[in-house]
């Protein structure tokens, strides 16, 4: 008898709640003011103007960029005549190579990073062992497994093929004819021995050529930046209160975005318009069995401080007080163990495999790692388990695909020059 009275009431309340729940899932996602502020921070148009590089006086020189582009694509600048910067930084693959480990004249121990947007990064490479685009560009050229070349080899090539362009930009070339064909501070013992026979003045003159090559390549690379993605169109529509916003992203993509800036904690590291804080983090990424021990930033911080080409070096064009990042560099060997730089997530979906040695083949693998937060092989992982559902993980991946966009650069920079 009594149940007859309260059952319809209970059913009515529950039914109303179900109705509200159903309706709310159909309504467009609402963003709080805080969330909108976060979205605006991630928006490509929040990207500031290209920061000056005081360490490179040629950074904004178009002629240097044209020269740098030629060097970037020129395979002669390698020990076997087959490797250029563009061998691993392919323009049609967002200036990376899609391989777990890079292949130059040999195989490296890390994955190729994209060049796009690196003008905004205070630190280069996964471990930040370089502090400018030009200093970065010079690393692979002397690596035994990348270009495999050396400073006098490159100086002779400049004199042979680019003397006019070089001279116009940087002044006369030094006398090179008496210098060994292969000499430089490199792993190759013959080139190293030859380098030791050269006078300090000869070494300095050859290194100046080498540095100017790097500064020219950087002047080119500065012009390569990520463009507007579907995500950015969505944020713009939101900020303009344009109802079309919900036609730009699907409900799953929007749900993924909400997780990305909320529950999944992604914006702790992937923040700002390039989706990276350019800092270093240990996220417990597994070590690769066949590779040598890799301590990440722990070593990178020491290397950048003693780097021959850093912002405070004689080859830098900066005043010492313009080298703030280096002046306030953190050195903490223990805390920095296996910390790596979070890469930009723009165009991430087409840029597998992922992590610093391509440990994960798919975005599903990556999200599974963040969701379960395993212990770090060495050091301390910053991750906490997220306990996301499979559906939520799929939504985050859907969102990540909305970060696909074009390269923001004049098309003339995106192919090998004639």
């Amino acid at each position, binding site marked *: *008898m009594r149940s007859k009275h309260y*059952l*319809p009431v*209970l*059913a009515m*309340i*529950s*039914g109303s*709640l*179900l109705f509200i*729940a159903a309706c709310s899932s159909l309504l467009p996602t609402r963003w709080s003011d*805080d969330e909108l*502020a*976060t979205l605006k*921070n991630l928006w490509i148009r929040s990207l500031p103007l290209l920061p000056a590089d005081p360490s490179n006086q040629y950074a904004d020189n178009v002629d240097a960029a044209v020269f740098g582009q030629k060097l970037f694509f020129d395979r002669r600048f390698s020990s076997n005549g087959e490797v250029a910067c563009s061998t691993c930084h392919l323009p049609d693959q967002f200036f990376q190579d899609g391989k777990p480990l890079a292949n130059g004249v040999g195989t490296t121990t890390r994955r190729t990073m994209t060049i796009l947007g690196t003008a905004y990064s205070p630190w280069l490479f996964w471990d930040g062992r370089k502090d400018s685009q030009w200093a970065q560009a010079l690393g692979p050229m002397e690596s035994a497994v990348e270009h495999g070349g050396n400073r006098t080899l490159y100086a002779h090539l400049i004199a042979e093929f680019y003397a006019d362009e070089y001279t116009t930009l940087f002044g006369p070339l030094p006398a090179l004819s008496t210098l060994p064909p292969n000499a430089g501070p490199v792993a190759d013992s013959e080139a190293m021995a030859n380098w030791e026979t050269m006078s300090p003045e000869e070494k300095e003159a050859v290194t100046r050529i080498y540095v100017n090559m790097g500064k020219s390549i950087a002047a080119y690379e500065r012009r390569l930046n990520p463009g507007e993605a579907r995500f950015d169109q969505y944020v713009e529509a939101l900020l303009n209160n344009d109802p079309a916003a919900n036609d730009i992203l699907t409900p799953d993509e929007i749900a993924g975005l909400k997780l990305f800036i909320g*529950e999944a*904690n992604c*914006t*702790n*590291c992937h*923040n*700002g318009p390039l989706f990276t*804080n*350019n*800092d*270093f*983090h240990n996220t417990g990424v597994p070590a690769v069995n066949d590779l040598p021990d890799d301590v990440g930033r722990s070593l990178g911080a020491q290397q950048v401080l003693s780097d021959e080409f850093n912002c405070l070096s004689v080859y830098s064009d900066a005043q010492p007080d313009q080298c*703030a*990042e280096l*002046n*306030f*560099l*953190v*050195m*903490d060997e223990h*805390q920095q163990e296996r910390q790596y730089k979070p890469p930009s997530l723009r165009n991430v979906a087409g840029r597998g495999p992922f992590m610093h040695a391509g440990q994960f083949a798919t975005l599903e693998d990556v999200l599974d790692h963040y969701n379960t937060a395993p212990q770090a092989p060495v050091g*301390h992982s*910053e991750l906490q388990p997220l306990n996301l559902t499979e559906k939520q993980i799929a939504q985050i991946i859907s969102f990540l695909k909305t970060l696909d966009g074009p390269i923001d650069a004049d098309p003339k920079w995106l192919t090998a020059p004639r």
Partner: protein
Amino acid sequence: MTTTTPKSKTIRTFLWIVAILGGLAIVYAIVMGTMMSRMGDAPSDLDYSTTRESDNGVFRVSYMPSTGMIPINQMHEWTVHVENADGAPVEDATITVDGDMPQHGHGLPTGPRVTEHLGNGDYLVEGLKFQMGGWWLMDFTITANGQTDAVHFNMMLK
């Protein structure tokens, strides 16, 4: 006496189903709501004052970021003002700076330090950068007039 027709029985069954589903929806909402609110929360009783006493009451310290609001991912500087317990400016102090995110187990991305004594108890701290939003704890250890004491500032950055 009531009779139960097949039709009213169907209605009752339907109402029960709606009631049970609604109940489940409420339980789900409560559980999810609790989970969402728990994630990433800093302790609720943190003191976010920009002026605080040092641990043993030796100094009274305040800070002022050069940028007004503290930016994320941007190198900036602070002016730190140090007074003694009587409110007199403390000159010629030695100050070390540290900071960390208690919930994340990592510190600052830079190594900030005092670069200039500006006078009147003011000190310029350069090289400050915070790489993410959330709860930060900044620690200043101050030595002056033969006494050392530490002061801590909580910050919730967005």
